[in-house]
């Protein structure tokens, strides 16, 4: 019997985060205290929580009951392997982000430092509580805490109207989602009134109600994760928030929604039906394709990354769908393959997307510029950020030997097995879905080349960029940590799968660890080496050796002479920075090929223009197809309500009186 349970230690971590947050209020204007003391302490707590969860993986679940909560329903908490995987994600990602934030936040950016510290650490603590919650009430309280604290973080710089609007939109969609989640929990209690997760697990729901619960959960968690069509808040909120907050929201908070979806569909609701998987996969495919196409045409670097997050969430939904289909047909090994891909991609995305968002933060600080059209050539002044961003870019494009490739590889392997399904129609459709995944992965490469090439390479598009400076030591440390995670997840897949396999086993009953461990830590062969294998370390070592050997041989047999000169200008000497591709120019092929997917407003210059200019504005179709009609409907409806709202107190008293009489009539005992 251990003296301290892991769950207690994690609770201590949550409390410590709250305490760090409150400590910020002691001296709310003292930036030095907040940045150089409190944020590093918060980072250390994150690392400790992550390590604790890492060592917990694979142990028997622990539960706890807190004395707070409703009189009949105190907070139930539970730590199992699924929770632990996501706590590892939260802890390790937040360590890097908090360290970075210690160098990032400066005086005079919107909210006061103390308040920022409170909101930030409250956000962290509530995400931890979301993961630990074991009853619907505790879950919803933590979920709301997470939504509210992140809303305040998004609106840190609340003096700008655009940022206030982005925050409002975020809050609105978060609450629509929360209502759906609440209803889903309500359905899952099956009318028994037991709101603990254990009670929900015990319920045997009829298929209709189980499906209703799943679909509500898909809508609710989808709104938080950014599935189409409830994705619109993401590209607004991410650019509005300070970069560490964007990183935290994109890297970690979106994953809590994935956690919720996994928890409901594989744990709470009982045996899944096969068509749930088809629904999840279809929505995921649409989301992934939509996200990646829009990310290629963005001109704002943080919006580009936000749409890329939508794409990644789409891929996760595809993986969940595939796992659901296999699980429904009791093909547990294949379900485990897809599930491993999902969990792996959660970890990978948390690493590389946080890294990229933090890189945009450094660029933003160095240049005060977020628009791609005014950046360029920053690799000369910011080599650290540029090279670390390159790691994130390669991982995000899903290329070997970094983390993004491993999860994509696992997902494609899972797709390759789908013809074994006992359903002929699915047999045909599912491999074709793999074609869409392949297209999405290739387009992600396009978006990432645009991101890195336009920001860091080429000539500087604005003269004031020469004053750009590299990231400071704190920022650099945070970036290096996240880049380290990205590389580690890329080159040690077998070890990582062995660790997260406990969660797969918990959800599905089987895992991949046994098969993967057979071939040692260097080789990843989830089924057998004859079927498929991947050895990232050999891969990396071969490329590194070839690069070094090639360099040495060239110098040995020839020479290493080099001289500098002007770039070749093709005889036309006005080769200024304006001759390069702009962000709009780079994505012109995509806009042309996928024209119907975008809503564009373009202005072309004519020969007679005194001051010719070209502009293009790409908008989301969903605004015009879905959101504006709904908004108009709501407005029309509230117009009707205004008629009974005359503003005279006597009339309102009459309403109360009538309601009372009505209630007495209806609600007679």
């Amino acid at each position, binding site marked *: 019997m251990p003296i301290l349970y892991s769950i207690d230690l994690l609770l201590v971590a949550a409390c410590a985060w709250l305490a760090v947050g409150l400590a910020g209020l002691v001296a709310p204007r003292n930036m030095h205290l907040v940045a150089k003391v409190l944020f590093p302490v918060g980072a250390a707590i994150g690392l400790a929580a992550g390590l604790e969860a890492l060592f917990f993986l694979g142990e028997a679940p622990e539960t706890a009951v807190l004395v707070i909560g409703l009189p009949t329903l105190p907070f139930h908490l539970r730590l199992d392997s699924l929770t632990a995987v996501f706590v590892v994600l939260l802890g390790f990602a937040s360590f890097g982000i908090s360290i970075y934030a210690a160098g990032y936040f400066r005086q005079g950016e919107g909210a006061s430092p103390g308040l920022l510290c409170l909101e930030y650490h409250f956000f962290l603590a509530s995400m931890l509580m979301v993961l630990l919650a074991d009853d619907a009430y505790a879950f919803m309280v933590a979920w709301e805490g997470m939504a509210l604290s992140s809303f305040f973080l998004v609106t840190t710089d609340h003096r700008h109207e655009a940022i206030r609007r982005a925050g409002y939109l975020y809050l609105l969609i978060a609450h629509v989602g929360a209502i759906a989640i609440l209803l889903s929990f309500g359905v899952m209690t099956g009318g028994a009134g037991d709101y603990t997760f254990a009670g929900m697990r015990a319920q045997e729901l009829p298929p209709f109600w189980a499906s209703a619960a799943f679909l509500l959960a898909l809508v609710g968690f989808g709104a938080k994760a950014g599935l189409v069509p409830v994705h619109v808040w993401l590209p607004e909120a991410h650019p509005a928030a300070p970069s560490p907050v964007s990183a935290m929201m994109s890297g970690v908070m979106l994953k809590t929604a994935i956690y919720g979806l996994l928890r409901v569909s594989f744990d709470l609701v009982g045996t899944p039906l096969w068509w749930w998987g088809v629904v999840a996969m279809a929505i995921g495919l649409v989301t992934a394709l939509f996200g990646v196409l829009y990310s290629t045409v963005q001109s704002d670097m943080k919006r580009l990354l936000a749409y890329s997050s939508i794409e990644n969430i789409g891929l996760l939904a595809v993986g969940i769908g595939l796992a659901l289909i296999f699980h429904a047909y009791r093909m547990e090994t294949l379900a485990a393959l897809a599930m491993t891909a999902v969990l792996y991609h959660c970890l990978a995305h948390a690493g590389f997307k946080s890294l990229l968002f933090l890189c945009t933060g450094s660029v933003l600080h160095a240049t005060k510029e977020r628009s791609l059209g005014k950046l360029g*050539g920053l*690799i*000369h002044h910011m*080599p650290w950020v*540029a090279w670390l961003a390159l790691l994130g*870019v*390669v991982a995000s*494009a*899903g*290329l*070997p030997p970094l983390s993004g*490739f491993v999860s994509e*590889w696992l997902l*494609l*392997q899972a797709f390759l097995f789908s*013809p074994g399904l006992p359903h002929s129609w699915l047999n045909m459709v599912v*491999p074709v879905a*793999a*074609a869409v995944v*392949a*297209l999405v*992965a*290739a387009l992600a*490469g396009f978006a*990432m*080349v645009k991101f*890195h*090439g336009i920001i860091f*390479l*080429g*000539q500087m598009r604005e003269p004031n960029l020469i004053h750009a400076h590299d990231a400071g030591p704190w920022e650099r440390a945070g970036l290096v940590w996240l880049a380290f995670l990205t590389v580690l997840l890329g080159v040690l897949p077998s070890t990582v799968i062995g660790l997260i396999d406990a969660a797969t086993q918990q959800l599905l009953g089987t895992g991949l660890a046994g098969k993967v461990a057979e071939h040692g830590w260097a080789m990843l062969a989830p089924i057998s*080496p004859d*079927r*498929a*294998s*991947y050895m990232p370390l050999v*891969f990396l070592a*071969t*490329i590194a050796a*070839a*690069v070094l050997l090639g*360099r040495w041989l*060239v110098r040995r*047999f*020839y020479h290493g*002479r*080099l*001289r500098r*000169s*002007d*770039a*070749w200008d093709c005889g036309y000497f006005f080769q200024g920075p304006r*001759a*390069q*591709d702009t962000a709009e*120019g*780079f994505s*012109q*092929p995509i806009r*042309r090929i996928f024209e119907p997917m975008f809503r564009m407003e373009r202005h072309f210059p004519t020969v007679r223009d005194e001051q010719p200019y070209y502009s293009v504005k790409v908008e989301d179709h969903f605004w015009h197809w879905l959101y504006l009609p709904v908004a108009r409907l709501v407005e029309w409806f509230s117009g009707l309500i205004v008629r009974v709202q005359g503003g005279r107190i006597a009339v309102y008293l009459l309403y109360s009186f009538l309601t009372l009489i009505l209630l007495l009539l209806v609600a007679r005992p």
Partner: protein
Amino acid sequence: MSISGFIGQLFAIVLALALAPLLTGWVNQCRAWLQSRSAPPLLQPYYMLHKLFQKDVVLAHNASSLFRTAPFVIFACMLLACAIIPSLSTDLPFAPAADTLALVGVFGLARIFISLAAMDIGTSFGSLGGRREMLVGFLAEPALLMVIFTTAMISQSTSVATIVETLAHRDFIIYPSLAFAGIAFTMVSLAENARVPVDNPATHLELTMIHEAMILEYSGRHLALIEWAASLKLYAYSCLGLALFFPWGIAEKDNFLGLIGAIPLLLGKLAVGGFALALIETVNAKMRIFRAPEFLGTAFLLAVLGLLVRLLLETRV
């Protein structure tokens, strides 16, 4: 890992390094014959490489470290690709390091580096080339993956060695799915290797160029490495195509005689393949850049069709 396997692996790499420029020279010579021009010497690519390695590198003032690293990375990627693809024997110790999906990843990695390097100097041609290369890339990569999916479904494996062994051991029947996949693969290879009708390797300073636009700023040893890597890529694609669609004659594990027999066979197959490439390039015209999506979209559809044919017709047998 056996000693003979290791020697075979080294031999395959050395052979790729040595043969790749020869293949490029052969294709150029065939093209010249078919177009009734006087042909350059067969060994011209080697002279070119030697000359370029001897020359000084002339680097633009604002070239960054990425620009100087990229040629080595691209070269290393192509070398790895050649090491994985079975040209003579399927007994390759490196083969488990990367299956066909990772192979597509290797090509993707090289493409990202060359596109970024093209954008590094900040000239209009460079970024234009980088953008077009990524355009061709994101259209060709899914088609290539679908071709690989088709072969992987036939052999129940994504490991290159297993695919080749399965395909080589089947009875000689023409799978309709493989026919579709073969056509799609040919189209993808043309695009990926910057060949007519998508790009023209013989052009300099045309507004339609892709590959040449990206490497305009390279010189000396960097250019030599990139040109060599381009040859290696052509060699890798040729060997992959031969291994997937004409796998007969590739030696299997511990078959030393087969290995010796495989060398002339490979040379013969490459010669025929190179001639076919020159023929395709001669009878086709270079298409406008915005016809390329249609071309590669067709390849993608054909590959998906091959996959569907495989799932619909061939699995029931």
